[in-house]
């Protein structure tokens, strides 16, 4: 065993199509993950139809629409970034990537203001310790002002589903920063843009999920 041992990576051939297949499967599991939420949503919507409509009215459709437009535009800039790198224009690709990150951040900021407004109206999720301490919100604290169960479920699902969606946006944005750095370094280029492509696919998935969240929470009223 005197000779230099070959690192195992030496025979790892890079199979772009296989990687893409694997990534699509991963995206599918993400879809199923949200699918469980959509099932829960539809079950409770059918049993608390009136409450869901009332609660949905308290959400601001204008803000929701603005956010939808922002996210859809970010998908466009993502595609443009991929298109630029395919043509070899890595500078342009980086610019579009920055646009995409900026739009994603804008979405999060607007979402944050929206959540803050809900908190101002005492609509927030609360830990059981907080309830025990008497720091009640009308959403959850038993008392005269407590909302009916259907609305509690609506807001519970709203915060958790948009929360997990926001988490995905953050992951996507961080990933784009990495892709940006790699493009700047030159390891993502005209001939090797698989990572950027997969990052784009992930971003579109996050986008598509919002396309479903938006009507379910904002437009049903």
């Amino acid at each position, binding site marked *: 065993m005197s000779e230099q041992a070959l690192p195992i990576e030496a025979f790892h051939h890079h199979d772009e199509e296989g990687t893409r*297949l*694997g990534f699509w499967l991963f995206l599918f599991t993400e879809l*199923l993950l949200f699918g469980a939420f959509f099932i*829960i949503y539809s079950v409770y919507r059918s049993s608390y139809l009136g409450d869901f409509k009332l609660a949905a009215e308290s959400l601001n459709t204008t803000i929701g629409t603005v956010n939808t437009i922002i996210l859809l535009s970010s998908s466009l800039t993502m595609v443009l970034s991929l298109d630029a790198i395919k043509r070899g224009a890595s500078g342009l690709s980086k610019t579009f990537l920055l646009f995409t990150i900026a739009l994603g951040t804008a979405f999060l900021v607007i979402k944050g203001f929206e959540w803050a407004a809900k908190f101002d109206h005492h609509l927030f999720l609360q830990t059981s310790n907080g309830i025990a301490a008497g720091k009640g919100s009308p959403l959850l604290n038993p008392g005269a002002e407590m909302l009916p169960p259907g609305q509690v479920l609506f807001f519970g699902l709203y915060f*958790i589903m948009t929360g997990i969606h926001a988490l995905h946006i953050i992951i996507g944005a961080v990933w784009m920063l990495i892709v940006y750095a790699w493009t700047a370094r030159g390891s993502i280029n005209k001939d090797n843009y698989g990572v950027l492509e997969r990052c784009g696919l992930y971003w579109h998935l996050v986008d598509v999920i919002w396309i479903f969240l938006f009507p379910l929470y904002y437009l049903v009223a």
Partner: protein
Amino acid sequence: METAGSQSYLSTHTSSRWNRGLLSWFMSTDHKRIGIMYGFTMFSFFGLAVCLGLLIKLQKLFPGSSGWEIIPPEMYGATFTLHAVIMIFLFIIPGAPAVLGNFMLPLQIGAKDVAFPRVNLLSFWLYCFGAIMAVVGILLGAADTGWTFTPPYSINTRSISIFGGDFDSISWMLTAVFILGWGTILTGINFIVTIHRMRAKGMTLFRMPLFTWSIYAASWIQVLATPVVGISLIMIVLERVMPIGFFDPTKGGDPILFQHLFWIYSHPAVYVMILPSMGLVSEIIPTNSQKPIFGYKSIAIASCSIAGVGYLIWAHHMFTTGMSDTASIIFSFLTFFVAIPTAIKVFNWLATLYKASITLTPGMLFALGFIFNFSIGGLTGMFLGSLSTDIHLHDTDFIVAHFHYTMFGGAAFGLIGGIYHYFPKMFGKMYSMKWAKASFAFMFVGFNSLFIPMFVLGFYGMPRRYQTYPDMPIFNHFQMASTIGSWILGIGVVLLLTTWIRALLSGEKTSEMNPWNSSTLEWQTATPPTLYNFEEEVEITRHPYDYETFREEVKKGTSIGATNE
């Protein structure tokens, strides 16, 4: 000249930075090393959970009125929960795909590794992390929800740490299962892509060995079902922290909805456990019969249709929850339907044995034990799948006996048989035949005398998950028979683990390529396999179980794989 790749994977390091000691294993992306690491971890947990099972059975030796108490009532729930969580999430769900799938799948299709070796290592790390989290969580907090985490109990119960004070053991466990779930999803994706993209030249889909086929079917279930249960378990965690009431009836939620979401995963998951073991049996039986497996294509297709139909029958776990009669009837029908592909497999194995020259190797004994036990498990499943008998047998020891027959007598026997079968190939060491056969004898006799009485007990109304039972002859006698059976089984498990450990430490070294004379590809390479699995590009020219051609090839010295020039 000898290159690094032509050395055994056991002696060669796989990464230039960590080349010796434990790190050369723990940082290795080599599928063979990862498989073996899974094996060691899983069987350590298996030993631990067997001990807990023996304790549970010891508790049942005498009725409560005798004053005999091994596990106090308040700890009994925690004991069987720990037993179940370890056995299900840490042993049998990773099971055969994690150990033998990782090791043998690339060898069986003539690949050098899996499609994403680094993701494979990540899966193993996730498994270790989740396992530590689950065991620490449950040991510190003594959660007693059972492995199904059924709300509202799992939402409202608070467990007390053994060190005093609050310790949210259930949330820990749920998060751990979520992490374990992502590990299995990644493994599933990895195997699917490997099978689609990395088959050797000439290895068409219908030339793949049947173990590969079963792994393929099981991987699809892992990918399609695990995310749903993952998010449902996370919702229980959220509800424990922030009482929204998704599954809490006092807050407008629907606990039955959780059961649906849970079983949408957990029923297909039983096929994740059983399919790979069936695949192993389909490898062991033709090898030790020295003839082609009967109905190769029908077994391959049966694997896939079990995976497909298995997805549609989850609610047969819920006949007593008060869901609609129409739904119950449909689910009951589909439950009977899934018996068809399963029975096809059993008949194919039996037909393979017909007029064969059978060698009773330890692997073969466990495979035959699998068929016997699994048939009992499958047929008693039919009792439970029919609506009216299920009302009587639901939540009794009958159920416990039924799923142990499929999971232990079936899935685990298949896995153990598979490990006996592949042991010489994996380690280049041979175990003692005498000890191996003794371990089978004790495990088979012990297993059956442990669980057959439980069918009777359940039929006479002994509820499951009860710490004690009334002092009545019918209960006393069968409980005692069952406990004595557990001791025989315990001896069997000790013999099994000692046989393996002894073989690893001081077993006879062997470099024989093909000790059982098997015709499939994984045997046509060095023992133990070299780092790159095959020295040259492999080309497949025949059916995996074509023993006639195989014997001619052996005579001419040109068996597939062509590693023995």
